[in-house]
């Protein structure tokens, strides 16, 4: 009788500890999603900014200032960058978001639509590889593919605790994905920003109050200058020192540092230090979101 009582007390204790651990898992998943939302918003923003800069110069060309062809080429390059480079970053970010959603689904014991979302992300990745294999590094694609395979497996197996354990253990591949996003923000993203800035600065020079455009059509020139000021303000927040990439990279760096701690402590009883750590990361993710939202 005593043994039975003891066994049931142990079972209750274990289940309680499991609930507390899974709360931490949920917390981590929630804050991870906050970070991926910020990244995805910014990917949309930078895609739009390139087009906006090109559009304004095209407008001027269509009004007779220079030729239309180079400006149309400029828009084409924006589009190609979006389809190749930004699309790849979107897939990388989707993978991290899906990881978080799968964690949540396993904790809540539900997985509505996740299999389809995972498959869709896999298809998008496959399409990118086929379009221009040289742009996509095989090692980087490997990290994405491994995470997607793990997520599919965990969902299909539907073994809650085992699934959560496997997801918690998926550190290195997740970190590789986050590092890729960070690399993009430091390199190709900055290339896109400086190109858009060069176009915008040129527009400002063309629309100067003492120039022929302003002399011939002062009202229109003033309107276009106002549109340019908005563009330049948005771009200014996105330079290498600007708040948008700085906060996003800070959030990514913090998440990368957090992952091994999460791996180590997520399934322990009452991991107070980890709970606080995740809260601190959540603040950084929030700051990144605010920086993105304030910049547009």
């Amino acid at each position, binding site marked *: 009788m005593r043994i039975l009582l003891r066994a049931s007390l142990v079972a209750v204790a274990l289940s309680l500890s499991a609930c507390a651990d899974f709360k931490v898992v949920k917390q981590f998943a929630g804050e991870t999603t906050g970070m991926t939302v910020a990244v995805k918003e910014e990917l949309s923003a930078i895609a739009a900014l390139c087009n906006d800069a090109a559009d304004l*110069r095209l407008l*001027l*060309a269509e009004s*007779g*200032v*220079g*030729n239309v062809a*180079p*400006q149309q*080429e*400029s828009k084409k*390059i*924006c589009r*190609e*960058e979006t389809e*190749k*480079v930004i699309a790849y970053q979107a897939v990388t970010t989707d993978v991290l978001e899906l990881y978080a959603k799968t964690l949540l689904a396993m904790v809540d014991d539900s997985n509505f639509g996740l299999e389809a979302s995972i498959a869709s992300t896999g298809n998008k990745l496959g399409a990118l590889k086929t379009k221009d294999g*040289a*742009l996509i590094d095989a090692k980087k694609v490997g990290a994405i593919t491994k995470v997607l395979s793990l997520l599919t497996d965990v969902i299909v197996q539907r073994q809650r605790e085992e699934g959560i354990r496997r997801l918690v253990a998926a550190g290195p591949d997740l970190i590789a994905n986050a590092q890729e996003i960070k690399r993009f923000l430091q*390199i*190709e993203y900055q*290339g*896109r920003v*400086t*190109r858009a800035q*060069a*176009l915008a*600065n*040129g527009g*400002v*020079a*063309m629309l*100067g109050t003492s*120039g*022929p*455009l302003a002399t*011939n059509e002062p009202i229109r020139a003033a309107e276009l200058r106002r549109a340019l000021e908005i563009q330049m303000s948005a771009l200014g927040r996105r330079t290498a020192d600007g708040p948008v990439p700085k906060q996003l990279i800070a959030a990514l760096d913090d998440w990368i540092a957090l992952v091994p701690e999460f791996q180590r402590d997520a399934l322990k009883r009452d991991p107070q230090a980890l709970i606080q750590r995740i809260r601190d990361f959540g603040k950084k993710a929030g700051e990144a979101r605010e920086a993105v939202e304030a910049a547009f």
Partner: protein
Amino acid sequence: MEQAKAGDRLTRGDLQAARQWHIDEAEALNEALAAAPDVTTMGKISDRQTELTNMAGRLNIASIELAIGEAKISAEHLNSAIAQAKKVIDRVAEVKAKLELLGSVLDFFAAVLTGSGTKIFAGAVQLASDLKAADTA
């Protein structure tokens, strides 16, 4: 010169200095744009500025596979070409002449984008000739 083998490419890292040069030269045209006396002149400068930013955009996302068996072009070759071009272009005050020289550099980088060592080499020879002509003019 060494010949390119399968898998040889110019990476984005190799093209970074070239990319930045195109952006810098595009920005350097703003003074001429602001001072343009008429819409026609402004249009020509605007076209060239956009062409420079377009090339920067192409170099931002490029990973250029080098043609097997043709001359193996390196980042050093490209950076040397840019350094030579910069020296001459910086000395040219006349806007029209500057735009023409920038066009010569753009033609060279159009060849670079093909990955063909033969075309790139021919482009480099042409660019050197254009720069020399401008320098002695």
